[in-house]
């Protein structure tokens, strides 16, 4: 039976979080809301404060100022967070002399639950490590370690899972495994917070995103909202008649032709690069169809999230 207060309870509620290391301000007035059942991405350039933020959520450190509630419990000192939080920052903590199964079994014994121990095989299967369950972790690849780290985090059946670069080093199959696992966890009502440098992963996985730059939040909200707010972005346009398409693009309001060199290795004589907001782009497609030009390909040169990320975190010229 649910407590009435649980209805409005966020998995993470941070307000005005500030954290400094000596003279370095890692986080400066950060707000963050993560609802249960959502996968929330934290992105930002190197040194933006992502790992510090994730460390605070895991309870590894405490904020200098501001308030932080994890699973409805105010956190005022390090390692004092509530039960139900798991994850890793700076890579999973694994013991190379133990097998994958022993790593999980030792962790289950540490948590003192028979239920955890009973679910080891199931979790290993979930992350695709059944075949190497009895191999020592010493011989594991980076991707296998990442998956085992995820398995270790899942073992405790967390309600808030915090993962730093969880798909780092994973091959496409491994990445799919992880995406499926995280998706299922969110469907079951757990909140997931991940950081990643891979915008495509964040876009594919996350319903919400927080962009952090130099310790401050540049954007926080649904990924769709970011797309609509991102303004003009560059698209690669391939049609049956490039010269006609060029003429249509020039005459369509809100659409600008851009330098094809921005496509890099994907540049070709058939491809145009246009910059437009979503509404103008829709109009361009309509005009192309009216002009009898078939559209073979229309895709962002870079993802909207990446474009927004670059725009929001770009340093002013005089700061560089």
């Amino acid at each position, binding site marked *: 039976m649910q407590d009435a207060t649980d209805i409005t309870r966020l998995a993470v509620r941070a307000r005005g979080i500030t954290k400094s290391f000596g003279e370095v301000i890692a986080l400066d007035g950060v707000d963050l809301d993560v609802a*249960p059942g959502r996968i929330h991405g934290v992105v930002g350039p190197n040194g933006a404060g992502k790992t510090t933020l994730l460390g605070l959520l895991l309870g590894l*450190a405490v904020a200098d100022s501001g308030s932080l509630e994890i699973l409805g419990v105010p956190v005022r000192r390090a390692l*004092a967070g509530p039960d139900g939080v798991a994850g890793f920052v700076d890579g999973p903590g*694994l013991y190379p002399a133990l097998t994958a199964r022993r790593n999980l079994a030792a962790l289950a014994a540490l948590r003192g639950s028979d239920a955890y121990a009973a679910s080891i095989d199931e979790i290993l299967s979930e992350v695709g490590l059944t075949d190497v369950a009895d191999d020592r972790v010493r011989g594991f690849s980076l991707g296998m370690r990442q998956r085992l780290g995820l398995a270790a985090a899942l073992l405790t059946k967390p309600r808030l899972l915090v993962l730093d670069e969880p798909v780092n080093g994973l091959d496409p199959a491994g990445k799919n495994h992880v995406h499926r696992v995280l998706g299922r966890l969110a469907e079951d009502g757990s909140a997931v917070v991940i950081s990643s440098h891979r915008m495509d992963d964040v876009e594919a996985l996350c319903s919400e995103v927080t962009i952090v730059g130099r310790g401050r939040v540049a954007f926080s909200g649904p990924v769709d909202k970011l797309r609509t707010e991102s303004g003009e972005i560059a698209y690669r346009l391939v049609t049956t008649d490039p010269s006609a398409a060029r003429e249509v693009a020039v005459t369509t309001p809100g659409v600008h032709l851009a330098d094809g060199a921005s496509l890099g290795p994907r540049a070709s004589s058939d491809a145009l690069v246009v910059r437009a907001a979503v509404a103008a782009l829709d109009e361009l497609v309509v005009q192309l169809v009216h002009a009898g030009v078939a559209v073979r390909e229309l895709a962002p040169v870079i993802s909207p999230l990446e474009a927004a990320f670059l725009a929001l975190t770009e340093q002013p010229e005089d700061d560089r």
Partner: protein
Amino acid sequence: MTAAIAGRATSDRRVPVSRGYRFEVVKLLSLWRLRLLIIAAWVVPAGLVIEVSRGSSLPADTLFGRWMHTTGWAGSLVVLGFAGTYALPLLTSLVAGDVFSAEDRLGTWRHLLVAIRSPRRIFAAKALASLTVIVLLIAGLTCSSTAAVLSVGNRPLLGLNGQVLAPSDAAAKVLLAWLCALAPTLALAAIGLLGSVTLGRSSMGLLLPALAGLAMDGAQILPLPVAVRVALPSYGFVAWRGLFTSPVQLGPLLVAIAVSLVWAVVATGLAYWLFLRRDFTSISTDGLVRKTLTVGVLPLAALFALTAGVLAVSAPATKGSGIDQSKLQHSVTTGFAYLYVLQAQQLHRPSITVPQLRASTSCDKGGGLVAASGPGNGWRCTVTWHIPGVSNAVGQAIYQLDVTPDGRYIADGDGPVQVNGYFLVRTPTGDAANPLWQFDGTVDLLATKG
């Protein structure tokens, strides 16, 4: 942005120390090097003692080494002497010196903190787990070296005053001696914990107990004042010898154990204090050397100075070498008398007792040209005794003594040949050297007089 959270209970639940302890023991025992060490500790000493005992030459320069043919209990004490100098500092290095720094190398601190949620409990679990493995290693050395008794023989052991210790008495004293060696080992283990916490992934943390042990052991063979030597935990690795004298030299042994335990507590306390103040969100090693010196080395140096000062003030005898003419004369007299009785038995001469001999000894150093005190090989002692059954007949035997700074000496018979020269005597266990030819002894460095 809101949604219901499943009604699973929220609690601030920390992992009990007992579970953390099991976790740490599992991790330690998963390491091949520790498994090999444990197997070696439980197997090698027995093999070594049996092999040496069956060999033609014995380690006569090692305490009790000359009796390894005679009784298995001597072998265990030879192993104990070796362990105190080399094995135990090395073993504590590999266990306690690595128990914290291993997490730094593997990058697992954050994982551990998230799992256990209490640095205090992590420290307690790690300290207890490393203590467990160290005790397991010492137990192995003890059991293995004493198990050799089954092969070599459960026979009486000659004490350091020549007194004969019955097998049961020898067994009790040998086990007690190993138990006493636990105290200085704990001190080294605590230094290992401190090094491991302070120096992180640096290999110096791993080497610290071994280096500290060797340095302190080196101090025991230097001609330093007794107060300095006794203020070091390594004195505990030699103080157990007092169990094998008659009477037992209990004072130095108790002081050595107390000093070792104080070092263990202080070093563990410093390690604990440092560990709780560690910032696990930073992997910076800035200021490591300064921190090591100020928090690690200086407090232990202060403890050493304080202990030495207290000893010097409370026991004036400790200001010097602790070795003087009267102590040596008393010790040599006692040793000679007991061994004379033994020799009479072995040669099937009429039974005699120690009091009947009315033995006495006169020692000088350097032919009387230097002060009769301190260690050195220039000691010469003349033993005089009353020959039993012959009125007013007095015998004399001369010994050259090599006295080491830790109070141990080897008395080498210098005639007459038929008394303390080299010849073989037939014993129940086979031919053996004349017991009065060469014998070991030790003087009580803390005693005010012999």
